Each structure stands twice: as C-alpha cells, then as structure tokens.
C-alpha cells in the first residue's frame, strides 16, 4: 500500500513537473521571436504572409554544423561550453521486482541525467587552468553515478579525478542460485529467501595530480584512490553438518596512495612509482535474522550468533620502468614491479542454541542413553590469520625497426609470487543433553592454537618474439611465436582445520602411497605452452579494410581444465566505408580450446574438456544527412562447452548416491539486435528511437539426464585415490544454459525551446523473460519475468550553444 502511495505521489509530481515544463514551453515560445537570432528572424519572416509567389517558397538554406570553435560563451579569458539535463523519471515494474532490481536497479525520482562543463582559455594563458572539464552521468535516482574532472595548465599541472558510486542489488531465485537449498528434497524453491542477496553500496575514486606535465626532464605524480563498500547481504554457513543462513553487514574500505616521478635522463625515459595500499574489512554477521532456514525441529538452531573478522591488509609496491629509442632503430622498454602484500585477521564467532550436530569429530563423547537433541551452550571459534605475499613482475620489451617497413620485437616476462598463510585455530563447545534415565549431562570440548599452514609458490616465464612487415600503406602482416613456462607448488602442513577437532597432518614421508587423506601435501605442477600467431591488415580498395589474426597454441599440462591446452583463436574483421556517410562492419571471432586433462590413457572424449565459441557481429552506421542517422547491428554468439565430469547424484527416496562419470554441457545461442535512429523532424524537434534485444535460446530442447548411464562393474580406480569408486555409473549429463529474452526499446522527443533550453520527453521499456528456463529446468518454481516502464521528462540547459 505504502509503495502504491509513493508511486502515486511520484507520478503526480512527475506530471506536475511535466505540466510546469509545458507551461514554460508555452511561455517560452513567443519569447524566442524577440531574441532576433538570425535563424529566428528568418523563421519569423517565413511565417509572414507575402504576396510574392517566390516568397511563398522558403529559400533552401544550408545549416551550419556547430564545431568546437563556433560554440562557447565568453567568460573573460575563457570560453564556456556546457550542458546540464535534469528532470524526473517515473517507474512502474510488473512482475519480478527483485530480478528487475538485480539487473537494472533504476528507481523513480528526480534525476540529474548528465552534465558537461568545459572551460577553455582563449589563448592558452588562463590563470588557474587552461582547460577545465567536468562531466557526470547518472546522479539522483540512478544506481550508478560518476563524476569526472579534468583540470590542467600544461606548464604547471594536470589533475584528473573520477568519483563513482554504484548501488548493487542482488536477490535472485534461479538455477545459479537455487533457493530450495535448505528445504528437504525435492521441495520446490522458496521464492523469498534470495540466497546470497546483496543490497550494497560502493564508492570509489581516482585522483591523480601531475606536476609539470609538459616538462620533458621531470614530472611529479601523486595519486589517491579510495574505495568504500558497505551494506547488508545474506550469506551461508555450513558447519558441523548444519547449514545456516546468515545476515551480514558488509563494510570494507581501501585507500591507495601513490607518488612518483617520471622524466627523461639523457636518452632514457624513466618512471618511478611508490604505492601504498591500506585495506580494512570490518564486516560483521549478527544472528538476529534468518539464521538457519532449516525448519525441522530436530535440526540445529542458533538464535544467538555473532561473527566478527576484523582484517587489516596492506600492499606496498614499487614500480619502475625505463624506455629508450636508440638511433630511432631500437625501442627498449623495461619494467619491474615489486609488491609485498600482507593481511592479518582475527575471526571470532560466538553462538548458542539447540541441536548442534553431534557428528563433530571426537565430540561429544558417545554416551549410552544420551539424547541426540541438545542445548548448545555458548560456544565459540577463534581463528587468527596471518598471510604475506611478495610478488615480483619483470618485463623487458625490445623492438628493432630494421627498416621503415619491417620490425621485429622480443618481449620477456617473469612473474614470481609466494603466498604464505598461517591460521591459528581455537574452538570451544559445550552441549547439554538429556539422559534417558532422567537428568542432563553437559560436556565441553576445546582446541587451542593449532596451526594450519598453506604455501603457494608460482613462477612464470613468457617469451614472445614477433615481427610485422608493411608491404605498403595498404597491406601489412604480423607473425610471432610465444613460449610460456609456469610452475606452481602448493605445500600444506600443520593441522587439518576443516573439522571442529583438527588433526595433525601426517608428514609425507610417513604417508602410505598413494597419498590419502590426512597427509601433508607437497604438490608441484608445471606446464609449457608453445603458440604461434599471425595476421594481416589489407586494404584492397581505399574504403575497405580487412583485419585478420589467429593464434594456435599447445601446452603439455594445465593447472585447471579450463586453461588453455590445445587452442586456436581466429578473428576476422571487415570495415567498409563506401563514403563518409555509411560504414559497414562485419566480424567473426572463433575460439576453440580442448583439454584432455591429465589422466593417462584417457582420450579427450572420455575425460576432457572442450570449450568452443563462435561470434558473428555486424553493424551499419549510416548518416545520409545531418537530419537523419541510423546505427544498427546484429550479433550472434554461439558457445558449446562440453566437459567430462564425475559427480554424485541421488534421487530420493533411493538411499544410494551414484557416482557418475558423465558430461557437463553448457550452451549459449544468443542473438542480439539493436538500432538507434535519430531524426530531426524540424528545426526544433528531434526524435530518437532505439531498440535492443538479447535473445538466448540456450540449450534448446536438450534436457539434463543426470541419472542416465549404466553401472560400471567393479567400480572405478582413479589414480591418486586409495579406494575404488563404488556405485560408479558411466554416463549422465548435466546440461545448463540461460535461455532468456531481454528487450529494451526507447524513444525520446527533444524540443528546442530556445538557444539555451531543450525540453525532453522520453520513455524506456524493459522486458525480461526467462519462461523458457522453466522448460529446461523443471525444478524452477517460476520464471523471474518482469516488465518495466520508465517514462521521463527533462530539461536540458545549454551554455555556449550557438545558433
């Protein structure tokens, strides 16, 4: 009800503003005649009755196109060119408001649509600045606003600043985020939980000042980038066999400071930057709302819950680079970055309630006659974390300009980092249980300061040699070879703290082979990648340009199965501009990556991952006259991912959980079409219309068959795993996609009231439909469809606009 009233008030105030603006229009129209601008004078003459037959035919006049020289208003030593658009936007959303807010998050209300303000000195000798530019978009009722500022006096300084604000909302109910999670199988989704919902707010900025920006010898730079993130969010907690739904208050902030200088020393251009980043996270989780969505009386409830994890992090980094161009033949660039990141945290969790899961390892002691139900007395976790990550990146690039047509380049990179983390774990539990014979029994259990250590070491070398040859201004080719070597090592020692009763990991030397659970880890992986790439640019005729490039690479190993193993990427683009009024663009981009995994003796079809994508894109930009322009295009994106996976699947009420060796398939068949059409209806009125549609057919008629396949007699033995896999099934598919239709038409009529003022009336419509989703995922309760109507009315004010 309240929302309706608010909407009604907004609509009424919007209408009132509209009426006021229209009144302004009525009043403004006669005034334009008295301005006596040349055009207005001609217009008024046109409307005067004349007796001459020639006079009845208005003279065809050519309209001068404004340029950056012809606009601008005098302001002393400066010229000012500025626009500001403000108004009111209404909104009505039918359907799933949460999905609308997750996608767009627009709101009704007054809005500052966009502003630009440019102040330029007339002779390059301004007092405080020669150029000042301020632009902004999306303030007021918009979810993302930004403000950019650029001020410079080239002799002395240049200041660039950006401030951005994002309002992030997420409350979804779909396959990527199933909300039936904590209800007994196979109950359908609970539409109100919005697992991992967010309603957060981010503010960030970049502010950089360069002193003496045009000085070749030395320039000084200082910069500051703040980031603030806060707001409520939902998260989950899986602990001791229980699942909890938590409400958290996110709050973090980071401040980046940087200072340095760059300049020229003899033939060498140099840059030095020292940076300091300070990060703190003071997010908290309280137990007041939404804890433990399990509703059965026997499952755990923790009405008292509080978690804090104050974290302090810092990154100190140094970056230095040099560049020189020897004898106009040899371009050499070197760069080194060293950073040292550290993070310290203290995790404190306190809780109390009922029926904490009794499967906690080693606790509670088995007591005959003790009830499984319990009172969970105040208990806690206390985990201190300490991590450091030194990181070094070194690059050197050399380009030899052998001739004016041929160049050859070599680029070498080395990257190295180590992440050393230690967590010191403590916990305390106290449960009170009812005894069969009457009375209660209270047991406590605690662990103090056991350490878990994980170290990740990584080193990468990449060597690239490439050349390019320019046959003539119309034809050029490039070609190259890249070699990459990566090595990753992971070491896990200390206690396994993924249970409530941590156990000391067995040293590797004492572990039986193959390595089973409960052992320390010392794992090393390495890969070598060789790739060749090349391409050309051709301009067979003056107005037609073709671009083509391709890369093919192979590796002997990957760190993840979606990493590049045997890949081929091809890109071809065509740009045809028969005249200055029309441009045709076409492009095809294909990517193929096959990964046979590492299981010896298994073919790619049996245990691999294949990722393929095809993108076709086309567009036309046509502006036959200054009064009419159209931009339109069509994209088609085709994605097929097929990975052989093993997964567990059970169909209740069957007790057995089968271990399938099947396929994970993902499909995308997205059609995207758009057009933007601008028509100047007459001297005062311009109409803009646009239409955009993304339509993904996803997997089509394909349906998942997770229980398909046939049992493998005797189970499966997987290298590195001690026991054979029983209940093994060969076959079964998990198929996923996101079939949907997202449409957005827009229209806007802009009426020029006078030289300083435009009146705008617009309407935008969004329609989102994922009904096809239900066909492919029968478990979904409902589609998150919505329709949104966003009418608006606004005024645009100009300074410095000329007739």
């Amino acid at each position: 009800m309240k929302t309706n009233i608010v909407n009604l008030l907004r609509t009424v105030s919007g209408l009132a503003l509209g009426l006021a603006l229209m009144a302004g229009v009525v009043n403004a129209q006669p005034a334009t005649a008295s301005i006596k601008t040349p055009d207005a004078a001609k217009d008024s003459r046109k409307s005067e009755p004349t007796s001459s037959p020639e006079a009845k035919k208005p003279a065809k006049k050519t309209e001068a196109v404004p340029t950056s020289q012809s606009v601008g208003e005098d302001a002393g030593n400066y010229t000012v060119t500025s626009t500001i658009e403000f108004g009111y936007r209404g909104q009505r959303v039918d359907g799933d408001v949460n999905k609308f807010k997750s996608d767009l998050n627009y709101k009704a209300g007054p809005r500052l649509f966009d502003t630009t303000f440019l102040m330029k000195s007339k002779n390059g000798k301004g007092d405080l600045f020669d150029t000042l530019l301020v632009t902004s978009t999306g303030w007021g009722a918009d979810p993302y606003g930004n403000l950019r500022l650029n001020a410079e006096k080239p002799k002395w300084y240049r200041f660039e600043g950006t401030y951005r604000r994002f309002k992030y909302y997420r409350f979804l109910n779909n396959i990527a985020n199933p909300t039936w999670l904590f209800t007994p199988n196979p109950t359908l989704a609970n539409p109100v939980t919005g697992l991992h919902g967010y309603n957060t707010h981010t503010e960030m900025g970049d502010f950089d000042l360069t002193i003496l920006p045009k000085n070749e010898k030395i320039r000084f730079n200082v910069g500051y980038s703040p980031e603030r993130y806060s707001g409520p969010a939902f998260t989950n907690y899986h602990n001791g066999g229980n699942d909890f739904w938590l409400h958290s208050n996110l709050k973090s902030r980071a401040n980046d400071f940087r200072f340095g200088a760059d300049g020229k020393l003899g033939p060498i251009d140099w840059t030095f930057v020292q940076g300091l980043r300070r990060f703190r996270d003071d997010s908290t989780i309280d137990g007041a709302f939404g804890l433990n969505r399990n509703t059965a009386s026997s499952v755990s409830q923790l009405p008292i819950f509080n978690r804090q994890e104050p974290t302090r992090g810092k990154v100190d980094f140094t970056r230095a680079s040099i560049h020189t161009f020897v004898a106009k033949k040899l371009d050499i660039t070197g760069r080194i970055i060293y950073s040292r990141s550290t993070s310290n945290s203290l995790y404190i969790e306190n809780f109390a309630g009922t029926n904490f899961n009794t499967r906690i390892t080693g606790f509670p002691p088995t007591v005959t006659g003790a009830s499984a139900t319990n009172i969970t007395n105040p208990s806690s976790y206390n985990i201190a974390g300490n991590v450091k990550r030194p990181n070094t990146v070194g690059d050197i690039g050399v380009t030899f300009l052998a001739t004016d047509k041929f160049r050859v380049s070599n680029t070498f990179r080395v990257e190295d980092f180590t992440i050393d983390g230690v967590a010191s774990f403590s916990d305390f539990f106290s449960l009170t249980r009812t005894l069969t014979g009457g009375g209660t029994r209270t047991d406590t259990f605690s662990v103090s300061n056991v350490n878990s250590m994980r170290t990740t070491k990584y080193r990468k070398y990449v060597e690239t040699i490439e050349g390019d040859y320019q046959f003539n201004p119309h034809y050029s080719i490039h070609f190259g070879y890249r070699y990459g070597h990566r090595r990753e090592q992971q070491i896990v020692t200390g206690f396994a703290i993924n249970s409530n009763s941590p156990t000391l990991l067995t040293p590797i030397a004492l572990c039986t082979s193959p390595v089973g659970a409960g052992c320390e880890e010392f794992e090393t992986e390495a890969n070598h990648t060789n790739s060749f790439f090349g391409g050309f640019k051709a301009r067979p005729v003056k107005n037609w340009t073709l671009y083509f490039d391709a890369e093919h690479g192979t590796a002997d190993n990957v760190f993840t199965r979606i990493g590049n193993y045997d890949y081929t990427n091809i890109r071809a683009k065509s740009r045809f501009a028969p005249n200055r009024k029309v441009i045709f663009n076409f492009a095809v981009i294909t990517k193929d990556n096959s990964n046979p995994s590492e299981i010896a003796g298994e073919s790619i079809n049996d245990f691999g991952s294949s990722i393929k994508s095809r993108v076709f894109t086309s567009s036309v930009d046509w502006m036959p006259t200054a009064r009419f322009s159209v931009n339109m295009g069509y994209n088609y994106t085709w994605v097929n991912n097929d990975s052989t996976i093993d997964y567990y699947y059970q169909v209740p009420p069957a007790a057995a959980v089968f271990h399938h060796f099947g396929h994970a398939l993902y499909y995308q068949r997205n059609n995207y079409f758009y057009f933007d059409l601008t028509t100047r209806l007459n001297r005062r009125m311009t109409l803009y219309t646009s239409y955009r549609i993304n339509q993904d057919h996803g997997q089509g008629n394909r349906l998942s068959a997770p229980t398909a396949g046939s049992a493998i007699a005797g189970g499966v033995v997987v290298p590195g795993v001690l026991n054979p896999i029983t209940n093994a099934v060969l076959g079964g598919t998990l198929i996923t996609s996101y079939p949907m239709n997202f449409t957005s038409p827009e229209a806007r009529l802009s009426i020029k009231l006078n030289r300083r003022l435009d009146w705008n009336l617009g309407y935008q419509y969004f329609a989102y439909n994922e009904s096809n989703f239900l066909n492919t995922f029968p478990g979904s309760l409902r589609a998150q469809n919505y329709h949104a109507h966003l009418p608006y009315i606004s005024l645009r004010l100009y300074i410095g606009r000329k007739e």
Partner: protein
Amino acid sequence: MRLRKSIKALVVLGSVLAVVVWLTAANRSQAVVSATIDDKPAANDYVGSDTCKDCHEDTFKAYSHTAHATLTTLSSWKNKASGCESCHGPGKAHVDGGGDKTKIISFTNKSSKEISETCLSCHAGKEERNNFRRGEHWRNDIGCTDCHSPHSNKEGRNVASSNMLVTTANAEKPGFSTIRMLKANDPQLCTSCHSEVKSQFSAPFHHKVLEGAMRCSDCHNPHGGFELKQTRLATGGDAACIKCHADKQGPFTFEHAPVKTEGCSSCHTPHGSANPRLLRYSAVNQLCLTCHSAAHDVGAVEPSGPSHNQNAQYSNCTACHVKIHGSRTSPVFFR
C-alpha cells in the same frame, strides 16, 4: 615431442633472423623511419603556421583550439618546431612550389604505423605508451589517428539520444574525447571496432560501460602494455579487476589458487552475461566440476560423495563454499 618443438622454434627463429638480415641489407639506404624530417632542416625552411593558414584556413582554425597549438607557450618547447610544421615538416618548399604536395609531408597515403611514428616522436616516453610498438593495435596496424584527430575539430549538434547510455561528445556537449582529441567517446570509439562486446554490455548482468559509469580504458590500456589483452594492473601486480573488487585481493591464508594464477576471466566473462555473477556457466556446480573432476590439478580435489550429491540440496557449490575467492579461516572456503 620436445625435440620437434625445439626444431619448430629454431626454424621460425632462423627464418625471422634471415628476413631481418635480408631486409636490413636491402634497405640500408633507407634511413628515415618516421615521417618527421630527420635531416635537420635549416631554420629558414620553416614558414610558420600563419602561412599555412592562408590556404588551409578551416584546418588551422580547428587546430588553433587544440593542445597542440598551445605548445609554443611552454618553455620546454622553445627552439623546437611547432605548429603545423612540427608534424608536416618545413613548409617553405611546399609554399614556394605553389602548394606542391610532394614538397611537404602528407599523411594521406602513409600507413598507420608511419603516422604513429610521427606522433611517437613527441608522445613516446610516457609509461602509458612505452609499449605501443609491441601492442595489439600496432600489431594489427591500428595507428594513433585511427582513434585521435590531430586537428581536433569536434563537430555536431547535440540531438536527442538515449537517457541511460552515454553518447559521444559533440561540439555542443563536450566530453573527455574533446580534450583528448579523440574521434569519439571511449565506449563508442572502442566498440566501433570491437562490436562483439556490444551484446555483452547489453546483457542483463554487465559492467556499466555503455551507461558511462566505466570506460574501456579503465581496464584496458589502448596504447599497449605487457599484459595480455592490454589490461591494466591494479595495485602492485594484481589484475585490473582487483582495483574495484578490493575484497578479492587478499592475500588469503587459504587462497583459491586459480584466482591468482589463471585470472578472474577463468570463471567470469568480464563484459557481460545473462548468467548471474557474470559466470561462464549458468549453473555454478558445472563450472566448479569442470575443474574439480579427478583432474588432479594443483589442489583441485574432487568433491567427495555422498555429501556432494548434485541433486538440489548441494548443487550450488558456493552455498557452502562461500568464500570461493579465498578464505582466511577455512581451507575449504566455508567461512
């Protein structure tokens, strides 16, 4: 296998070197690389921009409002060629020849690389552009003037346009492109060639680039760089994404290694997607299982059954493994 690769590499390297030697020898007489005049002309070969104005009035007018035109006011530019002749070379012969086009440097029939060399003769030396000669744009023969307009004459009337998507700057509505002498604003300019990302930026979930809240150049350096895809680096050597998504920076006691070693785009499509969280798969379990399926990668253990039953209750991996980018307290990312 390795021997074959080594031979391949040697063959390629040898071919490249042979071509280098051949071309160097063949073009030994060609000393001029850039379009600028290398043989230092005499001072009286220059006629000054005012002379150019007599014939090229419109171009001069446009040019006179640019940063290029104000260089003469800077002390660091004293005694250097300035104005039109700083790029087009001395104009005396051209003027004396009655406008003979062969007597002045004209860029009409020059390749993008040659034009770029002219620009780099002044604009090189800033870290931002140190790798231009090794960048993707250079490689594909995209030069400075494909994006920048050196005479910077912003034209056009401000007409009706979208109320949500940013539009390119024009004379009546100046923008960043006006002062950077770009032909269009950042997203429009980039998407005029990289049109494949338009559909991604129009998907239900996307980075707000077309809306103007971000620019392509916030994440990519159009002038080249050592990073793949010409991405920028965040603080230190971290990926560009970390700059805004600071909570993913870590370091974490228990790092999900691929975040750091493979990069964010292993799991996310950065420009836009219909999939929540910009994930590469719509169902998160399939994304996870693609790696965590007995592939015995570093740390990529296979989920054990039966608690990882993919039927409903546990099909959303991140419902339990909530701190999937890295955790300070849980080796399996539970908290």
